[in-house]
């Protein structure tokens, strides 16, 4: 039990500090890698003036998917929502879209509930609404710089690195024309080269930018946001999406997976 608790404490400390702890190699040999397992994460909205039609989005380990996800006013009632999920290899994105406008200037929270657990309720995130809804779609005039990343050197596989490939999309010019502070994410559809895009099909992933770039695929052994990238090439279709679920027109890119982008 002590060991279990110590591991638990250790995991928290790691998550606080780095998210990942790396055990260095001895004598230049192959290195070990230890990762904090997938954890529930609040995706959006974070702003203190979220649109009244905001979707509440969280990302949870797949074994949480059997829980009931609720959007509720803080110290208040559960809000009726439509639930959509995007399931990945280890993580599932849960999107709760309220069926009617949220109350203005009110704190809401998103929680996972399972009456068989104690504690039964896990509050994953919270946000405060502003005073208006957002019905304007974001714009995505350009995808920006699309790069294929491959670790081909002798260090590939060392520490927590993976060979790849993974794709980064940087310097995207996505914007929300009516809200400069909109929290924009990107829906990603992965298609076989030349395959037709079906707008009715749910996306394969929802990713949020970090330092003005998004990553698609597994960037390290500790990255649990896996989207399989195999074969010589892949077609990606992306759309920017705001907190309220408004989507931009899509953009498509053909990506060569056999060599890293210079």
């Amino acid at each position, binding site marked *: *039990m002590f060991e279990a*608790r*110590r591991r638990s*404490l250790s995991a928290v400390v790691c998550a606080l500090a780095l998210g990942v702890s790396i055990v260095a190699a001895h004598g230049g040999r192959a290195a070990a890698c230890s990762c904090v397992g997938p954890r529930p994460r609040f995706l959006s909205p974070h702003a203190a003036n979220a649109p009244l039609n905001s979707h509440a989005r969280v990302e949870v380990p797949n074994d949480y998917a059997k829980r009931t996800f609720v959007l509720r006013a*803080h110290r208040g009632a559960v809000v009726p929502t439509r639930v959509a999920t995007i399931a990945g290899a280890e993580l599932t994105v849960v999107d709760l879209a309220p069926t009617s406008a949220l109350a203005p200037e009110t*704190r809401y929270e998103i929680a996972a509930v399972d009456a068989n657990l104690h504690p039964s*309720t*896990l*509050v994953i995130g919270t946000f405060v609404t502003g005073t208006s809804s957002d019905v304007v779609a974001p714009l995505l005039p350009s995808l920006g710089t699309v790069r294929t990343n491959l670790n081909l050197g002798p260090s590939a596989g060392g520490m927590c690195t993976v060979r790849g490939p993974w794709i980064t999309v940087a310097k995207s010019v996505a914007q929300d024309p009516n809200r400069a502070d909109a929290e924009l994410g990107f829906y990603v559809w992965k298609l076989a080269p030349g395959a037709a895009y079906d707008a009715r099909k749910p996306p394969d992933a929802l990713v949020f930018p970090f330092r003005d770039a998004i990553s698609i695929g597994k960037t390290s052994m500790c990255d649990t946001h896996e989207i399989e990238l195999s074969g010589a090439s892949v077609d990606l279709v992306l759309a920017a999406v705001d907190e309220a679920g408004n989507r931009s027109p899509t953009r498509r890119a053909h990506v060569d997976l056999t060599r890293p982008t210079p």
Partner: protein
Amino acid sequence: MRRIVVVVALVAGCGAPAPAPVVVPTVAATPARRLEVSPSRPAESESAPFEIVKGTSSLCVLTNGAAHCPHDIAADEPLANGPILDGLPNVRGLSFGQDFHCVVTADGKVACGGGNHFGQLGAGVAEESAGLKVLPTLSHVKRVVSGPFTSCAILDDGKLSCWGKNESGETGSATNILPDARVVVEPELVAGIQDVTEVAIAWGASCAAMANGDVACWGTADLPEHKKLRGAQDERPTVIASLAGATSLSANEQTFCAVLKGKVVCWGSRSMLLSRGGSKTLTELAIPDAQRVSLGHSHGCALGGGGDVYCFGAAYSRALGVPVSDRDYEPRGPAKVTGLPRVEKVFCGASLSCALTVGHELYCWGRLGTRASDIAPTPVQMRVLPNR
């Protein structure tokens, strides 16, 4: 922040399991060094004009409504000359967690300051706070007790209200709030318990003693009888039959101890106890006619019936009252601390032990300050109040 706190991981003891201690050894130690003594020595029948509170890495003295918490304690410098915690003049009580502290003000409110990763401030704030934040929904507080990242307030009506980290149900709440939502953490009454007299909080579990003698625990089930009733973890308080009548509850991160029918009993992790392996029921420490017990990070001390102090746990804590090597990782069974006048209360901080005598003299041993030379392996008399 006024306090920089380092979270120290407990190091498990090594070596083969040892049998439970059956003999109380008296360790040959050098007599307590008697340094400068405050000339105002109260009569034994009077209550002390101060209260000693164990801090995270030191200790504080609460006198005349102000908590004085010196960064380093020195035998020749009165504790009450230390800086006043938070500059507050009307403190009625205080407690320390691993990276935060809370005070009870004269009007029965609670204010907390420091780290807030788990919502341990409980005050509707998302960030940590160097200054104190008043918990707006809490009042009529008699006493506050803090564990590593969780606190509970004993209210004037005997009810208990807790807040902070609740991964295992240790606050008694059915809602666990992740750090992204810590702004909504606030105190909640613990259902099903009343007339609370004491509470002790560990990393993932809490226990409270009640006026009728019952002891209830919640959170991670550390005892088989608890686990049998509630499973591995449950926020609902469960009366633990084997702890009926227990008093002087104390906890560190992993271990609980209490006094039960004149004996010190411990449960949870036994890494700091001499007895390891075997059953996971209560571990009994051989302390004659035990009256009180207090735990530090990796050691503990108990008050025996004759006013003697017995310390146990990790030798590397340097706070057992006997000279030991800091490389000695073997836990030690209870051993009498020699050279102390008759003791009334014991307090254990992180790596510090203190005893308050019936004559209101304070003796401490262990890590007194932050320098390597600040370790007192055997008791040193401390000055509490300035000369009057």
